[in-house]
Every structure is written in structure tokens, then in C-alpha cells.
């Protein structure tokens, strides 16, 4: 299945992916209205220093410890996509404790959020990918992981 992959050699560290992610998941039509002067809670984040930068989001891994560890049964994996039911989440952060990639973080209301590949929002494909100015983030098929 298609996943989001990053090529850190091409990452400019511009953080546009974070803004595009927050906008895509805001449900709003106007980017300035959605994000201006607000603290954003993107589901992808750029890590690095002054030399190396790269974007990190959920790997939708084949052995998702977050799914197995969630005390609320709020995280599940269907058709290769790890999803969270935020109405069930109580914000205990056990998924943060176990995710080896550091890919989950709480949203504005304290419940957890994660990359769901923009399949459920209006974008239909990952907004971080379509908006990446240097194609450092791609959405493609690479191998047979479930």
C-alpha cells in the first residue's frame, strides 16, 4: 500500500508540511483563517538541526505498538492505515510512551492525533506531500508491508 516517505537529503526544513497538515485537518476552507495567529497541532513534524532536517509522521508500521498498547482500544489498523478514534481517547499518552518513531502527539483538546494519510479529510491524499516544495516527502508504494 502507499505510504508517506521522506528523503532527508531533499528536505529544506521549511515546515510547510506542518502547516499544510494542520490546514488539511482543520476542516476549514481558508488557510489564513484556519492557521493565522494560532498554535498549530500538525500530525507531521520537522526534526533536525541547522544541517539536517526531516519530517516525521506515522509509519503505519506492520507491528503497531500503539494499537497493541492503547488502554482505550481507540487505535486500530484497517486496510493498512493506523487510525485513532479521538472520541474514545482519554489522553493517557501510552501511545507516546511506546511509539519508537515519536510520531504521535496530543491535539488541541488533549486527545491524541496522528497521520491518517488525509484519507478521511477533504484532501484525499496527504497534504504534506502535495505541498512539499522540494518533493522531500512522497506518497508511494515501496514494498509489501501490510
Amino acid at each position: 500500500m502507499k505510504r508517506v516517505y521522506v528523503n532527508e537529503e531533499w528536505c529544506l526544513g521549511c515546515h510547510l508540511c506542518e502547516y499544510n497538515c494542520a490546514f488539511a485537518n482543520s476542516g476549514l476552507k481558508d488557510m489564513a483563517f484556519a492557521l493565522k495567529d494560532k498554535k498549530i497541532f500538525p500530525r507531521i513534524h520537522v526534526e533536525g538541526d541547522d544541517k539536517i532536517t526531516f519530517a516525521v509522521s506515522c509509519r503505519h508500521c506492520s507491528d503497531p505498538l500503539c494499537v497493541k498498547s492503547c488502554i482505550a482500544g481507540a487505535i486500530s489498523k484497517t486496510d493498512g492505515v493506523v487510525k485513532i478514534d479521538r472520541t474514545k481517547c482519554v489522553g493517557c499518552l501510552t501511545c507516546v510512551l511506546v511509539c519508537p518513531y515519536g510520531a504521535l502527539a496530543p491535539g488541541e483538546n488533549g486527545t491524541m492525533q496522528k497521520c491518517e494519510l488525509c484519507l478521511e479529510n477533504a484532501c484525499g491524499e496527504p497534504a504534506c506531500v502535495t505541498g512539499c516544495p522540494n518533493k522531500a516527502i512522497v506518497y508511494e508504494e515501496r514494498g509489501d508491508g501490510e
Partner: protein
Amino acid sequence: MKRYVIVGNGAAAVGCIEGIRAVDAKGEITVVSQEDRPVYGRPLISYYLMGKTDLAKMNYRPADFYEKNGCRVLYGRRAVALDPEKKTVTLDEGKPLPYDALCIATGSRPFVPPFEGLDTVEKKYSFMTLDDALALEGALSETARVLIVGAGLIGLKCAEGIKDRVGRITVCDLADRVLSSILDDDCAAVVQKRLEENGIDFLLGDTAVRFDGNTAEMKSGKSVDFDVLVLAVGVRANVDLVKEAGGTVNRGIVVDKACATDLPSVYAAGDCAEGFDASIGQNRVLAILPNAYLQGHTAGSNMAGGDDLLSNAIPMNSIGFFGLHVMTAGAYDGEMTEEKSEGGIKRFFVKDGLLRGYILIGDTERAGIYTSLVREKTPLSTVDFDLTKKYASNLIFSRENRRKKFGGVV
């Protein structure tokens, strides 16, 4: 067709069902559920009392879970005996259940010390099950004075859960600090302060020795008046089925890395089991939900003919009180280094070039990166550990390692 029996209906049982179905789509699965309800997230009971979740959302799996997985669930039934030779489980009523493979996932029960005068206390509760929480809820009132015996994970989550629904809460514990099983003195003091700021009173290094109606007499000679008593002293693994059938039992049912007991075709998982703890290199009961699921899944897979080993289980906790998050993992063994920031404290324990364990108070961002260093026993010589003490970051790994993680299928 293989016949599977699972005794218990918590997270370990769900792991077992999903583990079986990953290997065997057809075999018959029977679940013996003492609680008269489908599986729910047991650690959610304090969040329920706080109003952060409700009974409908507490379901650990969707309503059609058992049906979709072809499970027959016997609600309100109790397993009373196990015959490993005949391969049957005897229930409190009805015919014995035959099995080809059995998983014991019976969890634990509250340990109640033989307090003098406990029978004179009218409103006393444990805090393990949803029934316990509902019973306690019935006793709450705006003026109620609550005494909680035990300042461990259960007692303190209970305190947080009921704080806004009662008049006063006092927590006592024989230990001289809160969360004594997972925190050192300094970190415990920070957590205790947060709880005190939110109106929880403590009597530490002191415990109730005698009850007389609504009064507890303490070891120190003090006395505490209360309306509601919560006993959260500790838990005991439910091991009797295996013990009486001749299986090896220590503090829990002893299992190997395949989660098999030493009785043929009998597995055990969850809070009742004592499996391999990679952080100390020996068996230990790891009574945490993620471990229950993982053990259950391992057991289920192996029951169905799979070949799974759970070799990297470690103790780990994520727990929060009034917005202060605490995470711990591994063993507090070796040289301790500390990073303090405005947001919190991080303590790392390093020995023989490995991160053996950690305690994080407040700043828990991306803590799973630390947990993976402990769990995978990553040599610290291969990562930039100094860099990551302040901020957990994937920058500490080599470029090649990152290419695999973020450019490959994992």
C-alpha cells in the same frame, strides 16, 4: 477444528483472540467471562468517574468484535478447575469445557490486608473493575470525606477521578512517597506536590491499622474520620486454576517467552502471568495493559500453531495527574543523569553503554524514542545520546538508520 478456551475477558483475552485469528481463521474460541459485560478498557475506570469517557466509549473493541472473530462468550461464568490430562476446564455450572489449547487470562484481584474492624466500615470499595467504580460512584457526594489506603497507581488515579465529586480526599500509604514502585524520592515529591495543589491530602509513612465505623486509627496514632473508604493496597495474581492443576506458580503463573505454562497446551497472559522481563533478565509480573495484550497475542498465536516469542517486554508506565504527565520505563539501574527544564525533569539510567531505564516528569514528548532504546538495548555508542537527553529526537540515529525508518516499510 481446533478448540480454544480463554479464561478471562480483559485485554489479554483480546490479544489472545487476535493472536489466534492471525494464524487460524476457523478454530472454535470460547471465552469464559466472569464479568457480565463485553471487554472494556479497565484502566479507564478513573477517567469514567472524571467524566472523560462514558460507558459506551469504554468498550475496548467494537460491539461486533466477538461475532466477527467467531467467539462464543460465556458471561457471568467462572472457571473453577482445570484438568490438564483430560484437557478440560470445569465451570461453576454446566458441563466441563474441552480444549485443545487453553489461555489463562484471569488477571488479578485486590489484596485486602486483614485490618481489624474492617467489617464495621459500611462504605468500603476496591478500585479494579467497572463494577467497583460504579459502586464507588454510588457512594460519592459533595461532602463525602474519602480515605484511600494506598498511594500507588490505582489509589492515586482513583483520587484524581473522584476529586471534583467529593468533599475531601486523604491518601495514606506505608511507603514514605507516592508511586513508590515506579518513582524515586525526588520525582515522587514533584508528583505529590501536584496532587496536593489540587486538594489531595497525604499521610505517608503511615497507614490505617484499625477501623471503627467511620474512623481509621493510623499506625502513627493519628485518627482519620471518613465517609467512604477505598482500599488500594495492592493486587494478587489470580493463579489458582494453574496452581491447583500442578503448574508452576510464583507471584504469577510462570510462563516462558512463548507465554506457555509448564502444563501441556496451557498458556497464560496478562496480570495473572509472570513472564520474561528483559529489563532485569528474569521473570516478573508486569501488570500493565500493553503487556497483557502483547502476552495474550503471543499466547494466542502459539496456541494456533504459530511461533512467536515475547523477548523484549519491559515495565513501562504512562500516567498523568491533573495535567502533569509521568512516564517511566525499564530498570533504574546504573549511573543516573538528570536533565531539568522549566517543563519538567528527565532522569536516565545508563549502565554498560545501554540506556537501562528512565523517569520523565512533565516533558514526555516523543518518549517512545527513549523507550525503544531501552527495549531494543541499543548501544548508546551508536547514537548521539547526549543530544537526545534534552529533546527526544530521531536526529540521534545515523542517516542510514533514518533512511530505513522513514524511507522504508517498517
